[in-house]
């Protein structure tokens, strides 16, 4: 399909997901380590490790993001969601030191997307998480822009492989008009 005519629904910006965006649907499929904080009667069959008819309070489960978001309530204790390692203090220090070094595609291809969604769960670390996401993006943006604009006719796949999905979306629009412009000057 020609990229010019097919315009899929883009992922949402920040903490909002776009309902019809396929990227956001894939993103919200990611599983998060969680803990139930109340009893879920008659749903024991979802939880393979015990034979109980109900899901007991305090059960550790891996819930997909869409379910975690749907069940989480600020005032009541229904579920508690654990922050994935990449957004915790340890990794935040790494990103602070040098954001360009990390292979963001390997850290789950939706680093920025999932990080933004984690802000829904009212962690006390939210301000730090948000800052880390922003600073990481800023730190990497300059580098990826520079290398991609100076890689005319070279194989950029090694660079692109380490990019998060959001960073990859930024690439084509930046590159195309520039490259179509160049040949006129080279002749």
């Amino acid at each position, binding site marked *: *399909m*020609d990229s*010019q*005519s*097919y*315009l*899929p*629904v883009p992922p949402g910006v920040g903490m909002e997901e776009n*309902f*019809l*965006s*396929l990227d956001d*649907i894939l993103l919200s499929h990611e599983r998060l380590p969680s803990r139930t904080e*109340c*009893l*879920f*009667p*008659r*749903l024991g069959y979802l939880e393979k490790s015990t034979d109980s008819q109900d899901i007991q309070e305090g059960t550790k489960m891996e819930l997909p993001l*869409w*379910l975690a978001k*749907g*069940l989480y309530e600020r005032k009541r204790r*229904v579920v508690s969601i654990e922050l994935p390692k990449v957004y915790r203090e340890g990794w935040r220090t790494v990103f602070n030191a040098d954001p360009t070094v990390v292979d963001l595609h390997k850290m789950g291809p939706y680093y920025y997307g999932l990080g933004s969604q984690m802000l829904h769960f009212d962690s006390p670390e939210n301000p730090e998480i948000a800052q880390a996401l922003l600073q990481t993006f800023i730190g990497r943006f300059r580098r990826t822009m520079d290398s991609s604009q100076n890689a005319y006719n070279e194989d950029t796949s090694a660079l692109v492989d380490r990019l998060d999905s959001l960073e990859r979306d930024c690439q084509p629009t930046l590159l195309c008009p520039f490259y179509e412009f160049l040949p006129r000057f080279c002749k």
Partner: protein
Amino acid sequence: YINVLDSLYLCISRAGRTDLIPSIKLRHCCLLRNQRCLSAYLYDRLLRIRALRWEYGSVLPPNIRFHMCSEELQWFNQYKKSLANFMRSVGGEEGLDITQDMKPPKSLYIEVRCLKDHGEFEIDDGTIILLKKNSQHFLPRWKCEQLIRQGVLEHVMS
């Protein structure tokens, strides 16, 4: 959906079974998830079908039509009509075919090679060209664009 859930919660609290609410909420999330996935799938199909009008023109090849449901075919026809009305309304008396020249053209006439037999083809000055497989022609760009997109002609770059 939300109204159904609220009235369900009301019945539940009246019956004194509020302990069931977490489970009901979980199942409701699952229903909403399925609804979202289905809606996004169907909507994406429509976006691709819309792109087909720009890629293939107003007549879809039968192998593509085969994969569309009747509602989608109906949607395509209505989209075609909207687009045609719009094109008629711009560009003065004859209207303007905006599905042509989607990229700025570099020259007025182009060299094309015919990839399959397509029969007779009339160009603006009345001349009839026979598009036989492997024949080459020097034709006005705007006449060829759609046939190039359909895979009948191939632009020969010298």
